[in-house]
């Protein structure tokens, strides 16, 4: 049985080049990058080289990159740091309802501290409501945070439009690009955002390292106070091997993404078409076209979602039901809820995220195995053979039919 790993937004397998490149920095080049002697300088140079690579990946200046412990820290930093630094302008922030918890939870924390938070709704494809945004923006709005692409349903958000609207009231725009970076070309100048979050382990780099892009001239309040690392904006001795790995992963992505995108898209399209042909009562979630090229997400009716994931795993197919944290907490996905799917459908969600290493044979194996699993589960389901009767009931009650 060949293992088919299609859970690449939970994490990706580190690339060999990244792994080899990190090794010397785990032991051989161990010095503190702040030490002024030659051993320290060598390590500091490696960090600055990695900073340049990350900057090149998103078309920013190296000085605009702040290394963090990952995407979660970058998001927390952006939300609280930008809101606090601009308190004089106002106390209103806007975040979308389909953001990762590392955006919505800091927003709720800011709410407790006296900020007013508007949660931006989405349509049935998961696209943020720009009319609602236009009406919500006001002089006191200091920050708008909308993701570049949604990890659960793959929908790409109209960030350029968000920026245009936000600029009218002088609000800053942050975008969580953690899911977008591995699958689409990202250019901070073209987007016009003030801050953008990245996570290395979603693009074949190591875990425990990420970055926040912060446009030159934008003030931020530090999230972690300490020494002069990262220009005093993020204290703490640097995760040197992690940062070196992130730099290598960024270079790898910049040099190859153009080839990886069509490869992933061809396989993804084959997967979507095959699933829809082979399985009845299955629905693609997220936007049909404006979605990440290596992302396929479905709702499968009349099966128990967690059982589906486990049965697929027994057969060597590793996927998830949505965001990893949501799956663990056994809660209905807030993303699919915001898209107005009822709970009984949400629990049957399944998410296939391809990587640069996904092959034709992987998709063929999924197309052979997935329908069998669904059929078996439907036989076992409490609806039994009567699940087709449920369909009639659904047509009348479910807004998505």
């Amino acid at each position, binding site marked *: 049985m060949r293992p088919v790993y299609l859970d690449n937004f939970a994490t990706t397998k580190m690339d060999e080049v990244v792994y080899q490149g990190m090794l010397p920095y785990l032991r051989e080049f161990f010095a503190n990058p702040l030490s002024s002697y030659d051993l320290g300088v060598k390590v500091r140079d490696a960090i600055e080289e990695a900073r340049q690579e990350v900057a090149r990946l998103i078309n920013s200046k190296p000085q605009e990159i702040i290394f963090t412990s990952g995407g979660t820290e970058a998001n927390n930093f952006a939300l609280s740091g930008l809101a606090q630094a601009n308190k004089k302008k106002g106390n209103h922030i806007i975040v979308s309802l389909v953001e990762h918890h590392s955006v919505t939870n800091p927003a709720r924390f800011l709410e407790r501290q006296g900020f007013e938070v508007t949660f931006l709704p989405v349509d049935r494809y998961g696209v943020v409501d720009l009319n609602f945004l236009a009406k919500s923006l006001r002089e006191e709005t200091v920050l708008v945070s909308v993701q570049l692409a949604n990890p659960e349903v793959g929908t790409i958000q109209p960030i350029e439009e968000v920026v245009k609207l936000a600029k009218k009231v002088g609000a800053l725009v942050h975008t969580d690009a953690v899911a977008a970076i591995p699958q689409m070309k990202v250019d901070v100048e073209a987007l016009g955002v003030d801050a953008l979050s990245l996570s290395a382990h979603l693009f074949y780099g190591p875990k425990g390292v990420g970055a926040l892009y912060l446009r030159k001239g934008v003030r931020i*309040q*530090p999230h972690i106070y300490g020494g002069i690392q990262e220009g*005093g*904006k993020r204290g703490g001795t640097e995760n040197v091997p992690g940062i070196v790995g992130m730099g290598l992963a960024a270079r790898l992505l910049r040099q190859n993404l153009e080839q990886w995108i069509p490869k992933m898209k061809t396989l993804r399209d084959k997967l979507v078409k095959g699933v829809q042909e082979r399985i009845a009562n299955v629905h693609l979630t997220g936007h049909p076209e404006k979605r990440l090229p290596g992302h396929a997400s479905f709702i499968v009716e009349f099966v128990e979602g967690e059982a589906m994931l486990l049965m697929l795993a027994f057969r060597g197919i590793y996927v998830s039901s949505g965001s990893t944290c949501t799956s663990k907490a056994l809660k209905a996905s807030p993303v699919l809820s915001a898209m107005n799917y009822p709970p009984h459908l949400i629990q049957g969600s399944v998410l296939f995220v391809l990587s640069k290493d996904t092959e034709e044979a992987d998709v063929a194996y999924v197309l052979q195995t997935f329908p069998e699993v669904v059929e078996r589960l439907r036989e076992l389901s409490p609806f039994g053979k009567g699940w087709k009767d449920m369909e009639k009931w659904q047509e009348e009650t479910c807004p998505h039919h």
Partner: protein
Amino acid sequence: MMKFLSEELKADLSVDVVHLMCPIHLLELNESIKKIEVGQVLELITDYDRALEDVPRWCEIFGQEFLGVYDDGDSYKFYIRRLK
């Protein structure tokens, strides 16, 4: 003696380190003073109170001219002329 100014001065380069703590204001002085020509003026914007002691002292030690500080209510704007 601290020289408080009643208005902002014209500067050739402005560096903003608002919200950042010690010793970032001093590191920025070290870096930024090299970016202007002798005779030109550097503006350092900070909300760090200790800078009121540190910046004039830094000018003394490194032989640069401290022109004064302007308090705009939110932050301090220090003006330094590069002498060498």
